[in-house]
């Protein structure tokens, strides 16, 4: 498809959508998704994001297109409109992912103060959201032992975050509530 053909085809599908025709609109969304995946994947690979992220981003763009479709004026070309939305969503997406990456790095730095056994348990429970029981089973130890280790790890993390040694140890009940 040349750019002109694509412009005509998709603009026509957008007009059909306004008349309530779902079939051409659905076909257009599929074509847009394919085209976007093809054009965005290399860009995302360059910032070390994979195919999975490309799919998330394509969905974000499709939702944006759909929710804001009334802002397209049929008298104007469709592709520049779509392009602007794509760029907006791409920038937004990159910004979020960068924030996520930074938080992951921060977390890794904080957890680095822990000995390996404690780090493993904190990561499993607090980061990955596993239950105490599953962690205990995975490490072939008792639930009580996991709780004690987690407790010690949290005290150590708090001590590392705040050097004044006035930390009150939280009760076990509070502990469970937070988890």
């Amino acid at each position: 498809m040349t750019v002109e053909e694509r412009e005509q085809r998709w603009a026509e599908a957008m007009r059909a959508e306004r008349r309530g025709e779902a079939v051409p609109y659905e076909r257009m969304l599929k074509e847009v998704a394919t085209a976007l995946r093809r054009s965005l994947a290399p860009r995302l690979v360059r910032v070390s994001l994979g195919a999975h992220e490309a799919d998330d981003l394509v969905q974000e763009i499709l939702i944006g297109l759909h929710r804001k479709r009334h802002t397209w004026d049929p008298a104007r070309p469709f592709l520049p409109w779509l392009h602007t939305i794509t760029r907006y969503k791409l920038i937004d997406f990159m910004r979020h992912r960068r924030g996520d990456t930074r938080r992951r790095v921060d977390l890794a730095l904080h957890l680095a103060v822990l000995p390996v056994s404690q780090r493993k348990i904190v990561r499993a429970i607090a980061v990955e959201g596993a239950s105490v029981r599953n962690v205990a089973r995975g490490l072939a130890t008792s639930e009580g032992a996991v709780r004690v280790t987690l407790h010690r790890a949290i005290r150590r993390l708090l001590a590392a975050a705040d050097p004044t040694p006035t930390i009150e140890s939280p009760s076990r009940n509070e502990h469970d509530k937070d988890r």
Partner: protein
Amino acid sequence: MTRTDDLIRSLASTAGTQRSASLQGAFAVTGAASLACALLLVFSVIGIRQDFAEMAVRLPFAFKVVYTGALVVGTSVVALHAATPGASATALYAISPAVIFLACGAIFDPTAFPIMGRTNTAVAFCVGGILFVSLPAMVLTFVFMRKGAPTQPLFAGAVIGILSASLGAMAYTLACKNDGTAFVATWYTAACAIMAFIGAVVGHRVLRW
């Protein structure tokens, strides 16, 4: 892949359900309501000038109306541009008439009106009054902008700020006692700048979609 296909199917199933009220139409309604709110505030809270009939035929009043009017028209065009993805950037030239009026008013002031006003409180009253009467306009325009698709939230917010300030200023001309074009060019513009700043800060937060 299948997740995306599911999404596409559910999006397509709502084809044709969006009411096709044009962005321009919604904008016109917003503008009219904003001006009405601003006028209402001027009449009810600030009060129009005592010697209104006499003052309304002289040059400073004409300058106020023409300057704020040009600003309203110009920023309206830019606001519609900001709400529409892929719109042509030539819309930005729409504010040039207002800028020319502003420059003329500031440079060729035929009145001998002092730029800081006749009383100590003139500047504060003028800028404060404009900010006050333009607040409803700002809220309404933000509601409109959220219906649109602003891809530069900071810029769209700033434009909303200037638009609502110029609408407010236009209504405020009925109450304004400062008959100097340089005064108006300076302090009306200062009010616009303050609202632009507020709008940009708010827009950055509320205009994401």
